[in-house]
């Protein structure tokens, strides 16, 4: 078996004195799409924060590409090819669309390339390039945040609740793009509260509740009853 590209080993994390993750393990293979599911407050976003480097685990290890990167700065991980679209809207509301794309150039790509890639995929954004990103519709904002993932050619992509507050049609459109990214061989971790949105594109599913991994397995094998049980806190 090949080495996983991303691995969490017995990670604990806390906010102040309150521990939120009580030793979680996760292993993502190259090119794999992992769905991270769980009820509200389970610790999914916290896990994403740990992986992206924004939150330092209190114990345990974060391995990327076989190297121990526990405690590495988020910006260093980002430049190394870890692309995170955080919860909420992953955009700068008071910057224009174009300036948002300019921020993506820290990944080492040229602005012109990023713009071309983005506008060809989302022509709607092209019309709004000088508009403040915060004044766009929710769907457009989420397109803009996905654009960073699409244009900067990451090795690993982390998505936290892409669908939050969006119409189903738009969600479907966004997940088509995610599937396209995955098809290029990018390893993806997708966080969703509601499984149905995402199980279609995922290879593996991990169910998190109360800061612990409850179930992990092939996405196709996780049944409705397991999910329902976990959400009801059994």
């Amino acid at each position: 078996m090949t080495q996983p590209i991303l691995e969490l080993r017995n990670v604990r994390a806390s906010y102040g004195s309150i521990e939120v993750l009580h030793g979680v393990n996760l292993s993502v293979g190259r090119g794999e799409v992992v769905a991270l599911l769980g009820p509200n407050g389970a610790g999914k976003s916290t896990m994403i924060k740990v992986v992206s480097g924004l939150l330092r685990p209190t114990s345990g290890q974060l391995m990327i590409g076989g190297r121990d990167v526990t405690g590495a700065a988020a910006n260093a991980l980002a430049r190394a090819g870890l692309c995170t679209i955080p919860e909420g809207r992953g955009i700068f509301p008071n910057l224009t669309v174009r300036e948002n794309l300019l921020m993506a150039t820290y990944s080492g790509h040229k602005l012109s390339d990023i713009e071309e890639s983005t506008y060809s995929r989302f022509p709607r954004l092209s019309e709004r390039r000088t508009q403040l990103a915060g004044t766009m519709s929710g769907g457009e904002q989420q397109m803009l945040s996905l654009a960073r993932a699409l244009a900067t050619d990451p090795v690993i992509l982390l998505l936290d609740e892409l669908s939050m507050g969006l119409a189903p049609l738009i969600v479907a459109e966004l997940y088509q793009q995610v599937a396209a990214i995955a098809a290029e061989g990018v390893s993806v971790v997708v966080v969703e509260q509601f499984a149905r949105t995402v199980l279609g594109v995922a290879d593996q599913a991990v169910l998190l509740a109360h800061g612990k991994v409850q179930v992990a397995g092939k996405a196709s094998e996780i049944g409705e009853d397991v999910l329902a049980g976990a959400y009801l806190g059994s």
Partner: protein
Amino acid sequence: MQELLTFTIIGLSTGAIYAVVASGLVVTYTTSGIFNLAHGATGMLAAFTYWQLRFDWDLPAPLALFITLFVLCPIFGLVTERFVMRGLQGTSEVVKLSVTVALFAFMIGLANWIWPSDSSREAFLKFYEGNKVSIFGINISWHKLITFGCAILVAIVLRLLLYRTRMGVAMRAVVDDRALTELNGGRPDRVAMFAWALSAMLAGLAGVLLAGEQQLNIEPLVLLVINAYAAAIIGRLKNLPMTFAGAAVLGLLDAYYLQFSDNSWFPQSIMGFGISGMRASIPTIVLFIALIARPQTRLRAGIVRIREHNKVPAWSTSIMGAVALIAIVVAISGMLTRSNTLLLLNGFTFAIVALSLVPLTGYAGQMSLAPLTFAGLGAIAMSKLPGDGNFFTLIVAIVIVALVGALVALPAIRLSGIYLALSTAAFAVLVTKLVFNQKQTFMSGNISVPVLDVPFFEINTPRGRLILASIAFSVLGLGVVAIRRSRLGRRLIALKDSPAAAATLGMSLTRTKLAAFAISAGIAACAGALAGDKVSPQQYDFTQSLPIVLLTVVGGVGTVGGALFGGLMLGGNSVLASVVPTLKNVTKILPGTIGVTLGRNPSGAASQIADAYRSLANRWNLLAFAAAGGIVIWILDAKYVISHWAFFIGGVFWILAVTPNLVGIMQAPRNRQIIASVYLAIGVIIAISVDWDNAVDSTGKRLIALVLLIALFGVGAQRVAENAPRIHRSSPDVIGLTTDFTDEELDRAERELGVVL
């Protein structure tokens, strides 16, 4: 007409300088959320540096300018960000402000040290001195033209930078969402360093330009920043074009006032009050208006405030502490020389002023930069009211000043955080400029405050006044404890913890805030009213308030012990200056240096010391022990048992190595306790018994020895005591404010509480 045009040009060129300063303030405030009160002081230091290079060392002007503005200023900014400001993320505004106050105090001290005011520095020339051009028949000096040019250049460069470069866009991105900037691969730390470097350059440029217009003096250059505050507030601390417009308006107001006041019909006084301080007050008045006219920020965009872990003080320990304090003062005051008594008295006066901050800033979380102003008003009231030291006069004076405090708070009531702090600063400056210089107040520069008339006791001696001050502090301190334990105290805490929740529960924010201000002003008034001696307006100057605020925050503004610590520390500083004249200069920068470390990495030595002091503040027994030890060392010196150098080294060792370790040692297991105590005791004995004057031949070597002693014994003892279970240390953030609520969390909380707005 011609004249009007001339003054317009003069006004605009003044405004150009304000604009440059204000834009620097905006740059750092927006990128790091820190309002840099020391910004003007940076410009002042830059102007002095330029003078040094250009006129003292005779470098050519372009080279001197280049070194000042493009080498030293950016380095200064980088260092400030890296070592002072970076640690401030997630701390409360009180701490942030205090640190910039510290920086301010540090820089003024440094300038006073390096360039003492007696040496003549008239040689500061304008650029192209004497050259003029004529535009529309008006003569304009090249210097003014250059000033204009610089402002325009700054505007253009900032615009291009912020909108056309990735660094500039990243600066704005950090403001929007710091975490997301990181997730994009940007480095917020570098962005912040860049912003601080840029800001220091802007301050430096303004300082050099202004020094050419005025003289090279510390105070006007520093207070320049007040004018810039006004401009920056007009620009809502973020909008640069508005800031520039505000600066122009201020410059014009100043120039037109100058023009009109030159006319013969212009009154010298209004209703008997002189208005000579009016011109200098204009920016402050504009600042006040701009602050009050700010649109109200929504209350619910609130913040999670973690409760300060100061325990509610118990009556028994408080009363014991008060009695012990008075007893100690009575006991030692008999042994002190007259001048030392006066110095200690000074410390207690400061401590009372510091105490006035406890209910207001410590409990209610409202920052005031004007505590001494109220003390000054108290002194005036006491000396002008009939009764000549009568106890009732004192009460009336306190009540009057408390009412003034509430009155001042009234317009500022909807402000909070930095805006409130600035409005109190504006008030302090206005009072200094417009009230303290009236013939009805400090007529000849000095007034006599009558000694309090206490039956059966003769207190018209320094010793009597010292004992009175310690009694006053103790009584007022108990009063503050009583407030904390009362319903009002809980309201004050609620005001700090969560204004929104407090309001939802039906509490009147306005009344609570007014009460806090009135109480605070009343306590401060006591400090002035009990002066019992000649006092001068300089004692109550705005700039003198800053070290008090600073050291009280360092000591722990949430406790009475913290106030005592802050006041005595400030008093102790002047003790140090008078006992060891060679260290006079060090004492100038000491409060600033201590305060600056508030923001250091929590593991940094000095902030650990501050931490240790803060945990000490609740423990009267340890505090008494620490004070007693310090006093013993002092007495040894006063009685010529040990030399001044041994006093200094022993005293600093006691303060920096022994006292901070007390809490840790108390909590260590028995055997470690003994080892650590013995270890420290050896250190103390070495510090005070070595014949420093003769054994070590230079000041530098003695200071090195001191540092080594502290490192060896202080840190050593800490290591020994280390394995003890740690007590809960409050963060450097005394007020205790951590992360922002997201809007979403607020919504959720509101839904769950059923208070959907």
